[in-house]
């Protein structure tokens, strides 16, 4: 099944030049793509279109088979719940505990508190944060915040996971651990797009790429791993 389909998308902010030009791409269910390109190339803008934070200036976006242009506004939240997002700066809510941050998508989906407690506790244990459920995000390390953000993005088992440079503020070891977590999710059926600058990770994990440059997009195959370039992570992935 086609998860995301973009046809001749153009995007400009205000009266400026187009950030994205004639972008067309199709993502099938279960795919894992890296979104690469230089800073300012439009990676975040492309992701914003996919998580429905932005409307294109022109062109068509189809998400899970729904044409966004013709979908009524009150049906968009239900579509957004099918999309998990790991924001570049995580965007955790600092006045809420780790537990409540992860529970947010379930609460907005009106899930019973009993079920929320069960699922959030399980997921926080899976990402190794069982002992930090009451902690405020500001008291957590960068890696821990990253995992909270990931847990929040996947708690509702979204069909599409968009990660906007989630490894930008963490060291390589944590970045690799995150990638392993994403791969596990991908094996469970979640379609994943991860924007990154980290060429090492792109080479090491070998997933196909969506390359964006000058507002144009090209779907490309995986980069070949560089000899001895892999980042080794020892121990259990948590």
């Amino acid at each position: 099944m086609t998860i995301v389909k973009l046809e001749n998308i153009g995007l400009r902010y205000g009266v400026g030049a187009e950030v994205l030009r004639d972008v067309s791409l199709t993502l099938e269910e279960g795919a894992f793509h890296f979104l690469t390109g230089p800073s300012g190339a439009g990676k975040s803008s492309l992701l914003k279109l996919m998580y429905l934070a932005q409307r294109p200036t022109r062109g068509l976006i189809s998400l899970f088979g729904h044409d966004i242009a013709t979908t009524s506004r009150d049906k968009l939240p239900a579509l957004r719940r099918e999309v998990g997002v790991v924001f570049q700066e995580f965007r955790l809510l600092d006045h809420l505990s780790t537990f409540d941050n992860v529970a947010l998508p379930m609460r907005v989906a009106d899930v019973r508190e009993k079920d929320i407690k069960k699922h959030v506790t399980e997921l926080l244990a899976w990402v190794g944060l069982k002992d930090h459920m009451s902690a405020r995000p500001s008291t957590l390390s960068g890696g821990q915040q990253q995992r909270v953000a990931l847990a929040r993005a996947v708690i509702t088992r979204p069909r599409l996971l968009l990660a906007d440079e989630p490894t930008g503020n963490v060291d390589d070891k944590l970045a690799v651990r995150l990638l392993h977590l994403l791969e596990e999710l991908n094996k469970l059926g979640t379609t994943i797009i991860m924007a990154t600058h980290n060429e090492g990770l792109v080479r090491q994990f070998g997933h196909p790429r969506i390359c964006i440059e000058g507002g144009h997009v090209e779907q490309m195959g995986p980069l070949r791993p560089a000899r001895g370039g892999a980042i080794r992570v020892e121990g259990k992935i948590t």
Partner: protein
Amino acid sequence: MSMFSLRHHSDLPLDKDPGTRFLPWLIAFMVYLAALSIVATSLMQSLSARWERGVSDTLTVQIPAAASVNKDQTQIEEALKILRAHPAVVLAEPISRSHVLKLLEPWLGSGETLGDLPLPHLIDVSLRRSIEFKAQNVRDKLHIIAPGATIDDHRIWLDRLVRMSHTLQAGAYIVLALICFASIGTIIFVTRTGLAIHQDVIEVLHLIGAQDSYIARQFGEHALYLGLRGGFLGLAAAGPTFGLFAYLYRQVDSSLLPQIDITPLQWIIVMSLPILSAFMGYITARSAVMRTLARMV
């Protein structure tokens, strides 16, 4: 000083907003003024009801004292005939001289010499509302049998009083409406401030799939709690004011002022002001947020 201590689940830290501190006090003041306005309105209603009864019912005919007692008696009987023949007159009865003297006692004293004064004869006339009473026509007829006879038509000055009372009532309603508008404006301002302060949080909630109503409900519930607290505070302050007002009212001559009749409906409205203010807060905040969020993608 923060009055807000009641905790309720919210994804938005609205409790810490600057507006949270002053809004309950402001609502308390508004509820206090609203309660006073309602009581003032009921006072005006009581006054005008009493005056309106006077307006519609009665007038007094004055027959000047004649040269002899016999002539006096004849004039009064003729006047009574004229009055009782009018279809609008329900009752026309002469007021006894002793009663007239008693009425004049506060001004003229109670000396025996008063009995010698040539006092005019008074006839108390009760009218029925349904039939028009043209005072001038009756006055002309009375002049034929008793030159100088006058009709004190209470309706003229009582009508002015009633109009004044109605104007004051309308003023009280306008004050109530202004209080409502001011409260709504303040709640909208506080809500918009909250929206601006928590823009990031709202955006995150929006992007993870929160319906507008989910976010608006949190603002609405917050305004509801603030409105409820402010409302009860205002009502608590209005209680002693009513007590003081009632005490001062009792000190005034009861013949000048009527008993205030606060109807059960007015009592219900006064007692439910905190709930009304809370409900108004909920609706106002919720709709303000819904309108703002509708502009988001």
